[in-house]
């Protein structure tokens, strides 16, 4: 691939990625551990969910494989925002890939505190508000209802000039309502989606596999569900939608881009094929070439081309 087509995307507020392929929160650590990855192949790195103070995470067992998917209940183990700002961010500042910090917490103040601490810190290219973590007590409180979602977004928006993505939960009757609410509250983009609440039971031992009972389902199993969420959101919102959920291949990513996503994030696949992000990026480039499409903007299918009420 001598000359690559232009794959750059803008997610708003100056956040410009050279490729639409990002790595998703919780699947790439803080960018230091992932092996075999050529960082220049990435559009952006989204970090592990970061809270005001360090968290130990949940007791084991934390993960379980399910058909074409995996459940996790990590419980936001992370070193706390101060460590991130002091130790990690300076290193990121030297990388030529934007790093977006995924922000989590138990209360509005937690999110606001993390955002405030990171505002203006060199190396931090944006924030992704995780209002959709099923693995801590009340982790979904802000994500399942438009009002608290908007209030949280407004509060964080007030303390940061950083590009602000809000990561939505699919565990709702109407994801579009939540998406609209955070758009109106000042989000620059939405990330859709976080994991689906699920569980597995150990039949031999007669108890749930995960210590928390339930966990979040990710991986190819959820791709059709995530794709539908993105399809609906991108028809309804005017801010960019970042598509997430079960992407393993360039064809999967293209499904999301055709559905209207401006960019995508790869999650679980990073565990399986560390070189996936590059392969997906290259596959998207080849597809644009083969279909004689100038850039990513030409990809979205017009919803008008199919029946309305899907």
């Amino acid at each position, binding site marked *: 691939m001598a000359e690559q087509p232009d794959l750059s995307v803008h997610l708003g507020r100056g956040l410009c990625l050279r490729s639409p392929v990002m790595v998703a929160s919780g*699947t790439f650590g803080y960018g230091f551990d992932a*092996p075999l990855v050529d960082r220049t192949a990435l559009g952006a790195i989204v970090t592990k969910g970061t809270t005001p103070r360090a968290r*130990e995470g949940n007791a084991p067992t934390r993960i379980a494989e399910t058909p074409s998917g995996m459940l996790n209940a990590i419980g936001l183990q992370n070193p706390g925002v101060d460590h991130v700002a002091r130790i990690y961010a300076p290193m990121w500042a030297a990388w030529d890939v934007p790093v977006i910090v995924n922000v989590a917490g138990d209360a509005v103040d937690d999110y606001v505190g993390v955002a405030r601490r990171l505002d203006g810190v060199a190396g931090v290219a944006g924030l992704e508000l995780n209002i959709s973590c099923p693995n801590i007590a009340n982790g979904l409180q802000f994500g399942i209802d438009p009002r608290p979602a908007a209030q949280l977004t407004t509060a964080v928006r007030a303390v940061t000039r950083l590009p602000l993505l809000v990561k939505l939960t699919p565990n709702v009757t109407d994801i579009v309502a939540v998406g609209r609410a955070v758009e109106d509250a000042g989000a620059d983009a939405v990330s859709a989606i976080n994991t689906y609440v699920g569980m597995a039971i150990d039949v031999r031992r007669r108890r749930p596999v995960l210590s928390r009972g339930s966990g979040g389902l990710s*991986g190819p199993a959820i791709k059709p569900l995530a794709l539908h969420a993105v399809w609906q959101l991108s028809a309804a919102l005017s801010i960019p939608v970042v598509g997430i959920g079960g992407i393993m291949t360039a064809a999967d990513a293209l499904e999301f881009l055709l559905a209207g996503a401006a960019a995508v994030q790869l999650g679980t696949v990073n565990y399986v094929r*560390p070189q996936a992000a590059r392969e997906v990026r290259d596959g998207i480039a080849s597809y644009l070439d083969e279909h004689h499409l100038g850039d990513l903007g030409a990809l979205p299918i017009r919803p008008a081309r199919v029946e309305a009420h899907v």
Partner: protein
Amino acid sequence: MSLALKPAVVLERSTPMSGAVELVVHHPPAAAALRPGQFFQLAVAAPQTILRRPYSAAWADPDSGRIGFIFNVVGAGSGWLAVRHEGHELDLLGPLGRGFDLDGSKPAIIVAGGLGVAVFPGVVGALVARGRQVTVLLGARTSAQLLPSGRFPGAEVMTATDDGTAGYQGSVVDLMPVALGRFPPPQGEGRGGGPEIFACGPTPMLQALLEKSRRLGVPLGLIQVSLETPMGCGVGTCLGCAIARPGGGYLLTCLDGPCVRADRIDWSRTADAFHG
């Protein structure tokens, strides 16, 4: 860390003992990089699975570029691996994690229950090569399930079987007093004297071993175990392989292990770590 990029090629498939499969693959960089006790994440193309499967290297030979894996079939992934044969490619990520600490000069006692033996051929070879005295305690349900003692050249091998068809009838842990009795007793908690112990096996066996060691006055710091927890990534990014640490918090089996000293684990919070 030399993470295998190109697929390995399967050279041989055999049955080292009843109920187990040994795959020998060719991958010179990985074989050269491996330290005894480290593991690989093997990609499997079994129906409905997505995650790689963690497997300790049983042994590796840097000269020939060969690596051996010994395993049994417990589910879809191992079932798929078990039908690989000569010429098939195997996508492996690794070597990963921390192997056993083999430095020092104390005599070594290996305690291996069931498939736990899979990690030890290379470990024993390395210990013997370092000039250390090695006693291997092998336990299995029945004699046919014992890895032949010829796989541990230079070491003394004692066996135990549940059904008494070979060696001592009973648990491999019961061989501990005999094996220990030959050496001067350990000098308290200071890791001073006595032999070092390297263990791998199913939960009940490991718990029995720790209990017995406590009673025999062997400090936990002299015991290294190879841990098994579910793994997502194998490289520290998913935080899925947590294992409780004394005093709170967690280690990561994939980064801090799989081989750790027993005193680094809070065993009371670790019932789930082993899929026995």
